């Protein structure tokens, strides 16, 4: 009480100023950050079809094109594999390839990717064996690769839970003096989870070298963005944590790549995290188990087809004379080769050893598990004899 009176009495009003009872801010208060530079663009950044595209490196444009074609083919092939029962499930990224690829190609080899369950394509674009990337979805093992070897965390099924991991890894790398950046991918629905909030907050407070990449594809299964958030945009959420928010056209591969490359560079030089929201659309249903006609109109899908990422880039490349019929054919053929190989390898039944169930539960198998393993061994032997 005493100190309160004392404090208020020390507020000096200049002569002739407003009356002494005029509300003044609490003495300790001062704005920490100017929010203006943190605010996202008024409109999603576009490069294709604008003058800015002139600055883009033709080699990069062609690389992105080849990867988009391959990515689309990967999506259609994996979707076909679910119909043949070769995959338990496949969450397609058809229509979102520019996000998956633009983002993956923004990373250096030493960087880390933290994908969600939908981001198989980003992992493949980063160089992961397409079959290894599908293990989770085929159902033979949860993660088909060594995350350390590829610097790709396991595809995360529980939403947003991988985001704090990305923060922790990036923070650890920085503590060790490595200039490694973590790219953490999440869907629009995932931004509602508490883990999203906690990850962004930690990253900003620690100035961790992380880039948060939200693919806003319009829906979380059936729930449209309007029921997910009342924020002006998902990128706006960044401001509250004290990091910049960026808004980009997620179907413009060049824009996505550019924004992500900038955010990665910023993180690498110690500038802290960025939240990027890409505006895109999920052309296919959520998964093969989903009936999208229950919650969205066909017309909406068609509108987005006209804004297809491949179409946008192809138009640009053709107009600039970088792509002709031969180039298109070459890209399509390369994609077809990848698809044929994927088909063939996925059509072979994986050789599974049920005893693996006990192999990786602990570093050293417990007596309890050895006993259960023996039980299964006996069952399998009996099965074999029968």
């Amino acid at each position, binding site marked *: 009480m005493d100190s309160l009176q004392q404090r208020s009495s020390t507020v000096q009003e200049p002569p002739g100023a407003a009356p002494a009872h005029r509300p003044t801010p609490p003495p300790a208060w001062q704005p920490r950050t100017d929010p203006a530079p943190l605010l996202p663009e008024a409109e999603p950044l576009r490069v294709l079809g604008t003058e800015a595209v002139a600055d883009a490196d033709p080699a990069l444009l062609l690389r992105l094109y080849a990867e988009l074609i391959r990515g689309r083919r990967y999506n259609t092939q994996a979707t076909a594999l679910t119909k043949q029962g070769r995959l338990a499930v496949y969450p397609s990224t058809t229509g979102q390839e520019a996000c998956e690829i633009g983002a993956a190609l923004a990373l250096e080899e030493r960087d880390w990717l933290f994908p969600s*369950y939908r981001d198989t394509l980003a992992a493949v674009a980063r160089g992961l064996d397409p079959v290894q990337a599908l293990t989770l979805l085929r159902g033979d093992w949860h993660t088909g690769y060594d995350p350390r070897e590829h610097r790709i965390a396991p595809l995360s099924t529980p939403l947003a839970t991988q985001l704090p991991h990305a923060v922790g890894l990036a923070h650890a790398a920085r503590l060790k003096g490595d200039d490694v950046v973590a790219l953490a991918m999440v869907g629009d629905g995932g931004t509602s989870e508490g883990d999203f909030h906690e990850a962004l907050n930690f990253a900003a407070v620690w100035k961790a070298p992380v880039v948060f990449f939200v693919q806003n594809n319009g829906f979380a299964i059936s729930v449209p963005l309007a029921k997910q958030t009342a924020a002006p945009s998902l990128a706006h959420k960044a401001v509250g944590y004290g990091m910049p928010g960026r808004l980009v056209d997620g179907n413009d591969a060049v824009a996505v790549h550019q924004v992500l490359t900038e955010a990665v560079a910023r993180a690498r030089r110690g500038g802290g995290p960025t939240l990027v929201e890409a505006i895109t659309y999920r052309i296919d249903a959520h998964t093969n188990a989903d009936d999208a006609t229950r919650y969205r109109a066909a017309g909406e899908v068609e509108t987005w087809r006209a804004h297809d990422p491949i179409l946008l880039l192809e138009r640009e490349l053709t107009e600039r004379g970088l792509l002709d019929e031969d180039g298109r054919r070459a890209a399509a053929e390369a994609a077809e080769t990848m698809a044929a190989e994927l088909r063939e390898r996925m059509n072979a039944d994986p050789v599974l050893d049920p005893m693996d169930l006990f192999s990786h539960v602990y570093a050293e198998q417990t007596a309890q598990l050895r006993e259960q393993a023996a039980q299964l061994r006996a069952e399998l032997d009996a099965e074999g004899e029968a």
Partner: protein
Amino acid sequence: MTTATTGTAAARAAGAAGKPKPATMAQALQRAMRDAMAEDPTVHVMGEDVGTLGGVFRVTDGLAKEFGEDRCTDTPLAEAGILGAAVGMAMYGLRPVVEMQFDAFAYPAFEQLLSHVAKMRNRTRGAMPMPIVIRVPYGGGIGGVEHHSDSSEAYYMATPGLHVVTPATVEDAYGLLRAAIASDDPVVFLEPKRLYWSKSDWSPEAPAPVEPIGKAVVRRRGTGATLITYGPSVPVCLEAAEAAQAEGWDLEVIDLRSLVPFDDETVCASVRRTGRAVVVHESTGFAGPGAEIAARVMERCFHHLEAPVLRVAGFDIPYPPPMLERHHLPGVDRVLDAVARLQWEAQS
């Protein structure tokens, strides 16, 4: 809120004339929510995709259309938020029925569940009940990828203040869910997802009378040994009992229906008659539900037992990928092996 079927008495009489049509467990659950919502305006359904889509398993199909989005609400994607909001709604007199989309996606809500839902009545000396139903599709056997097949019942059972129930039949799906919604305490309602499409000639016009939570039921009479089970393992045990018949074993099968409270009376009456018992469930065995059940039976029926109470459970491993799940889930053979081991005197 004690007699959950009152409003359907007339309907039952009317429906008795017509032939019951086969209904699935998912439909019976939907019907239970619908009837509860029609009778009581304080009942609210909410969760991810429960509205327009009708839930990923279609269990809430049509509720938003019939009762409006304020009564059947698509929430933002946040389990802690869903359950936390339900706490506040219950504090203000509503009866929320929340859906957790899959077993392993309920974990973000555990803080709310353990710290608030389960404890509110106790913390407030009874002033603030929590009539919340938490519907959780659980268990494996549907070929789901990781995080879609957990059996989390032991976590719930270990938390005082929660009821934990799980139906194994279409009839019980309706009756138990009505009872859960009518309960003035929080109920974790575990829905065996591999039984969602199981059918019965149950008629929504003539639902079986709703019994209060806490009663087990004898699904099959027998004299040789008691199989104590629940949820997805009930059909497995019934099949095992049929198979055992051929080998001269006459097995009794008890469907617990309610894990908390636990029906010691029905279980012990059976074990005292048969002298032998096997607990069967697909969740892991170590510190699993069977550990508690076996201990209770041992404590209460020791002098009647001819053999130790055995457990048949999933292995003590994280839920395996779909291509290997059949090796993990206790099937008929594993149950029969345990029954064979009940010939204790012969062995020792």
